Structure formats: C-alpha cells, structure tokens
C-alpha cells in the first residue's frame, strides 16, 4: 500500500480540479458533515456531538471503525539498503546510488541504524521484538519504484503485538484527560519509493529517486479507533514518541510521517463493514477531518440503502472531503516472494540470547542494549510534571505536546520564586498564546525563560501589580534586551507606594461618579468593582487592588 500512495501526493492537486467537475454529486452530500466539521473546529466534545448527529441522521446506531497504517521515515544518515544520503529537498537524483536506481547486479546492504531504530520504536510501543525477521519483495509497477518491487517485511516483521497508549482531552471544558490505547499489529522495515512530479500539460512524469530506498517503519494498527479525534490524538502521541526516541523526525508536512486510514462503519456487535482506505493525509488535523467525513459519508450511504465500496479515496483538504482515487480492479496481486538477496535478520539479547562467540560486535544488534538507550517517553514526562510541580494533567499535556515548551516551563519555574501554578498560567496563556498568534516556535520566543522568571519575581515581591506585569511582558516581547526591572523603572510601572496619591485618585473617582456611589450605598456592592477598575485605569494598574478596594469601601460607606 505504502509506496503506491506516495507517488500520488503530488498529483492530488491536479486530480482535485478534475474531480470537481467529474464528481459534483459528492459535494452536495447530506449537510450533516458540515455540522460535524464545525464542532470539530472548536474540538469540543467532537465524539459526543458526532454521536448525536448519528442518532438524528441514521437511526440504526452505526459507529465508525478506524484502523491506521503509519509510514514513519527513519531518521538516519543513509538509506535502508544503500549508503546514499537521506535529506529532504536536495537537488533531484543527487542522493541516488546504483542500488537505489536498481541497476542490474546492485545488491542491498542493510543499515544497522535502521534496524536499531525499528527495535527501539518497537520496544517503546510495547511490542514483542522478533529475534528473527525476514525480508520480502512486494511487486507493483510505478515509475518511482525502479526495481518493480519494494523490499518489505510481510511474512515475519521485526516487531509485533504492541500498544500505543494515548490520551486526549474531553469534557465540557476540555479539562478531562481520557487515556485510551490502540493495539499495534506489527512494525515492518521497508523501502520508501521515489517521488513523481506529474506534468499534465506535457503528459509526462518527472522522477526524482532521492527518496527511493529511504528506510521506513510501517506501523500497522488494529481497528481500535472510532473517530477522527481519537485517530488524530493517537497519531500525535505516536509523533511525539518517535520524536522523543529520535527514530523519526515526524514532520508530516515533509512526508516523514504519512498516515493512511482504513475506515468502515458497522453496528456494534456485528461484523465490520466494508472499508475504504483514505490516503494523502498530511497533518493530524486533516486526518481527523478526513476520517470524520468518511465515517459520515459511509453512514449516509448505508442509511440511504446503498453499499460502501471497497476503494481507495483521497482527501482534499480544501473542500474537507474524500473522493475515489482509482479503481482497484479486483484485489491487487503484489506477488509477494522472499527477498533472495537478504538472509534473515537475527537480533540478540545479551542475557537471554547472547550472540554466538567470535561474532564482530559491530554486526550485532542487542535488544537489551537498545532498550537501555530509550529516553523518557512523553507519558512519563507528563506524569513527572504533575508529580514534581503539582500541575493539572491538561497543563502537562500542553507542555509536553508543544515542542520545547516543557523545557521553557522548567526553565522559568527553576529560576523564579513564584509558584509553578502561577508560572504555568504565564507560560501557557501569555507566552504560548502570543507564539501561536504570531506563528512562532517556542525556540523563537522573544522572551527567554530567565526574563520571564525575573518578571514573575517582581510580581511575587509585590513590586508590580499583575496588570502592570502584563504591560512589562508585552514590552519584553518586543525583544529590546532590557530586563523587566529596567522596563518597570523606565516606564514607571512599579507599584504605587504613595498612600496619599492613591487616596487622592480614589477620592476623585468617588467624587466624579455620584450615581455609582449612591448605588453602592443602597447595597449594590458589585458596583464597587467598576470603581476599582476606574482607579486602576487612572493608575495604569499600578495600585494594589486590595488596597484600592479598601479605600473605596471606606469612602462609599
């Protein structure tokens, strides 16, 4: 499946244009999915809202069943079976060896790094690592697969029977952490294909073999997911795990992580329905949208008495819809056969299955040695954040899921006297908020953890009010290199200590708002807040609100 989809990535845009004219009926499908997609935007309780839509549109309680096939490009210097470099966006065909171009007589030589990466990934996903695994040839014809077959692991893959535990936020306020898991059937090592650029006007295809032969880990998951949100959460967690392990860089936009979704619907308890395969999904968000669209489409097909066809569909992110990609003409025959040029891959374990004596250690991959090099996984990190800093689980999610944000938070928390619970608000609301708004990474933040820590110290010591601190923060964001203390000094944002001055401002507010004062005196204490606000406006938020409130209460009683 893998490779056939890859070459297609570039062609999708072209197809889309044609599809609009050829398949106009798809676009007038039932309106239900619009509702569904809207609720997705806010990502609030999507599964729930979808269930409600289901009840309305199809009375028989159909549910979606989703299984994923993920292709993760192994982060290595060289390709799986050749010594040519792995690099994105290099000049075309510059990273191609004779083997990658499948010149006659060129033979595969397995890259140890790729084996170790697959073993490490398998262990991190609780897989059983097969001490012996085999390579097979999978035949299909496409111009970006010059050999006419892909070397993969069909019969006996390197890892089997794993589990990916993932969590997503649920509940009305998105503050409940729901932990689920999806079974991993197998992880297999295989070759990536080259890339095809389709030149429709000249009716030709340009072939770049730079990607041909790059190592892939294909992760096949069992159909344990029920909706787009779950699939997106599982893929996001997998992405984090792979990035943490360093076995895959996980950039979906660059095709380092590619997801195909097998989607079907059925009534619980009954056998699974006919599935479609949705390809060409290049972000977690589109994955969720494509799956939800496809579930909804299939429910409507069945609801209106039709049958779902077993077909490959592509997702058009612009319209948010899936459309049929091509006819499969019966089951494709891949003519799997053992790869005759590669003996079985044997792995060892220094305790339970030591390598035979006299074998070059460079030629041996020890499962237990790989296990020892596995770094702290995201789930453990989140737990540690909750335990160490007393954070809420949902905050630990934000910190771990955003690349570099956890280190940023720990950096601030370790340099300030402020409570971690106060720090987290600033890091998530202010820092991350502004970063997102401006489309920046955490590493590009103009405010360093040290500066934020200094600002929080000023706040903690009562030298600035919280509203003044926000102003200082915005000033820091401009990146002028001045310290928070300097900014407070220069802009006169320090807390007002002058009692007489505060009293004078309070009095002038009281004097100029007789209506409000009368309301307070007749018992409407809420109006007091308005006066506090007016005083703060006057003082640019530099007065201690508790003190202001006390003075105003006194003045209006």
């Amino acid at each position, binding site marked *: 499946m893998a490779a*056939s989809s890859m*070459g*297609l990535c570039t062609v999708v845009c072209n197809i889309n244009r044609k599809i609009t004219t050829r398949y106009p009926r798809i676009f007038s499908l039932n309106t239900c999915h619009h509702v569904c997609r809207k609720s997705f935007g806010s990502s609030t309780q999507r599964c729930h809202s979808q269930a409600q839509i289901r009840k309305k549109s199809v009375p028989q309680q159909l549910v979606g069943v989703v299984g994923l096939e993920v292709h993760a490009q192994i982060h*290595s*210097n*060289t390709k799986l079976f050749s*010594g*040519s*470099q792995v690099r994105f966006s290099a*000049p*075309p*065909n*510059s*990273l*191609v*060896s*004779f*083997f990658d*171009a499948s*010149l006659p007589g060129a033979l595969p*030589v*397995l*890259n*140890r*790094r*790729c*084996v170790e990466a697959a073993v490490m990934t398998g262990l991190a996903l609780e897989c059983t690592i097969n001490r012996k695994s*085999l390579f097979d040839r999978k035949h299909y014809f*496409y*111009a*970006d697969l010059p050999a006419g077959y892909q070397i993969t692991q069909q019969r006996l893959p390197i890892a089997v029977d794993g589990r990916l535990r993932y969590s997503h936020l649920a509940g009305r306020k998105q503050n409940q952490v729901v932990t689920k898991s999806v079974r991993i059937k197998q992880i297999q090592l295989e070759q990536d294909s080259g890339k*095809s*650029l*389709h030149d*429709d006007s000249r*009716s*030709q*295809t*340009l*072939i*770049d073999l730079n990607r041909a032969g790059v190592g892939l880990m294909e992760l096949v998951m069992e159909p344990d997911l029920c909706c787009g949100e779950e699939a997106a959460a599982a893929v996001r967690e997998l992405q984090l795990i792979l990035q943490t392990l360093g076995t895959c860089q996980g950039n979906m936009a660059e095709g380092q992580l590619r997801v195909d979704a097998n989607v079907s619907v059925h009534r619980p308890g009954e056998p699974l329905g006919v599935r479609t395969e949705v390809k060409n999904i290049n972000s977690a968000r589109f994955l969720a949208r494509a799956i939800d669209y496809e579930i909804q489409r299939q429910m409507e097909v069945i609801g209106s008495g039709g049958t779902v066809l077993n077909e490959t569909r592509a997702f058009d992110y612009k319209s948010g819809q899936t459309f049929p990609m*091509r*006819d499969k*003409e*019966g089951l494709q025959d891949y003519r799997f*056969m*053992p*790869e*005759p*040029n*590669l*003996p*079985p*891959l*044997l792995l060892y374990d220094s305790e339970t299955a030591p390598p035979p004596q006299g*074998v070059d250690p*460079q*030629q*041996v*991959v020890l499962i237990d040695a790989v296990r020892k090099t596995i770094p702290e996984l995201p789930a453990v990190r989140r737990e540690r954040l909750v335990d160490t800093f007393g954070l809420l689980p949902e905050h630990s999610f934000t910190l771990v899921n955003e690349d570099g944000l956890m280190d940023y938070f720990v950096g601030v928390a370790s340099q300030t006297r402020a409570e971690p619970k106060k720090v987290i608000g600033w890091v998530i609301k202010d820092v991350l908020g502004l970063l997102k708004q401006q489309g920046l990474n955490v590493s590009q933040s103009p405010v360093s953890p040290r500066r934020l820590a200094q600002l929080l110290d000023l706040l903690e010591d009562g030298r600035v009010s919280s509203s003044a601190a926000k102003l200082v923060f915005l000033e820091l964001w401009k990146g002028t290199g001045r310290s928070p203390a300097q900014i407070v000094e220069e802009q006169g944002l320090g807390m007002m200590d002058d009692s007489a001055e505060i009293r004078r401002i309070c009095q002038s507010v009281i004097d100029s708002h007789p209506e409000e004062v009368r309301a307070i005196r007749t018992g409407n204490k809420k109006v007091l807040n308005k006066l506090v606000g007016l005083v703060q406006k006057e003082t640019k938020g530099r007065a201690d609100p508790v003190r202001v409130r006390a003075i105003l209460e006194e003045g209006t009683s």
Partner: protein
Amino acid sequence: MASFTLRNLFSRLRNPRPLHRCGVYRSAREDRLSSKQTLTWCRWSHETTSIPHEKQNSHFHNSKVPQTPTWEPVSEDHLPPPTQVPLDLVDKLERLALVDFRNQDAVACLEKAIRFADQLHVVNTEGVEPMDSVLEDRALYLRDDCVVEGGCAEELLQLSKNTVEEYFVAPPGNIPLPQRDERTAMLKDSELKLKF
C-alpha cells in the same frame, strides 16, 4: 515451491533420493568434491569437514549445476488435473503485462507452460522446510550509517532515454489500464509488439 531451485528439481526428478536438508540433494559426487567448495556454498562446508581457508578460494569452480541437462518424462497420472485458463484471467494477464494472447493458440501455449510447471507437484517436499535462498544460513551483514554513495546523478541520467533537467522522465503513471479495444489499437502500433 519458490524455494526449490531448478537444479534441485532436476536432481530429484532424475533420481529421487532422500534430501539432505532444505532440498539440497547430496550426491556422492558432491561429497567427493567437498574439499573444493566455493564461497557460495560455505554452508555446505559447515556440515562436512572444515576446509582450510586458502582452499575455499581455490580457482577451481565447482558448480552445483549439472554440466549437461538431463531429462526424464513424468507420466501424466502423477500430475494434478490440467489448468484451464478462463478468458477473463487471460484478459487480466494481457492487461497487466500488456501482451497479446489474442488467439486460441496463444492461450494453449500459456496452458502448456502451466502444465510444464505442474511437474513441480511431483517433487516430494514432505517435512522439508521451504528455503528462501542459498544464503539463509548466513549472517546478514549490517552496514554503518555513513554516507558513501550518491552524487552520481549525471552518470545515472545518462542511462535514461529521456530526461528533463535532473529528472528522469516517465510516461504519466497510475492511469487506469486501457480497455480491451483501446489496448488492441495500442498494441497494433506498439514497437513492443514488433519484438514479440
């Protein structure tokens, strides 16, 4: 079945004798010559006598392939019923391979080829583990992850009939295979057809 090399098959057909292991037929002649193994057949040497290293690299090439072909007919009643190739399968094969069986003679030829392969069924594989390749007992060599190849685009592109800038040029791919009538027209003008 894929595990059997033709050589093994021919040996078995010629003179059915117990298999040594994995379908490797061990003749008296081979035993006699075991001290002149080539590297390809090192596995054999593990099981017989150990051979001094120099001798392994001996210039004497001991091919396991019989020098002259031998043949012995297999009687029809040993074979499974002959395969009939239905028209829709012929059509599928034609479309996949872009070949033209066209007439009944060609289909008969295809059926004859299948009949020839049917003789493989006669080979006794009872209790024999299928063998992937003659290398299956060898250790799989693992390479260091160092860049040592590539940077030969010019050399590779020279091999291509048609290039644009640094790309190979191929016909547009993944278009549906042509329908029967279109295909006939295509094959009529095809250079390929002239070769067949």
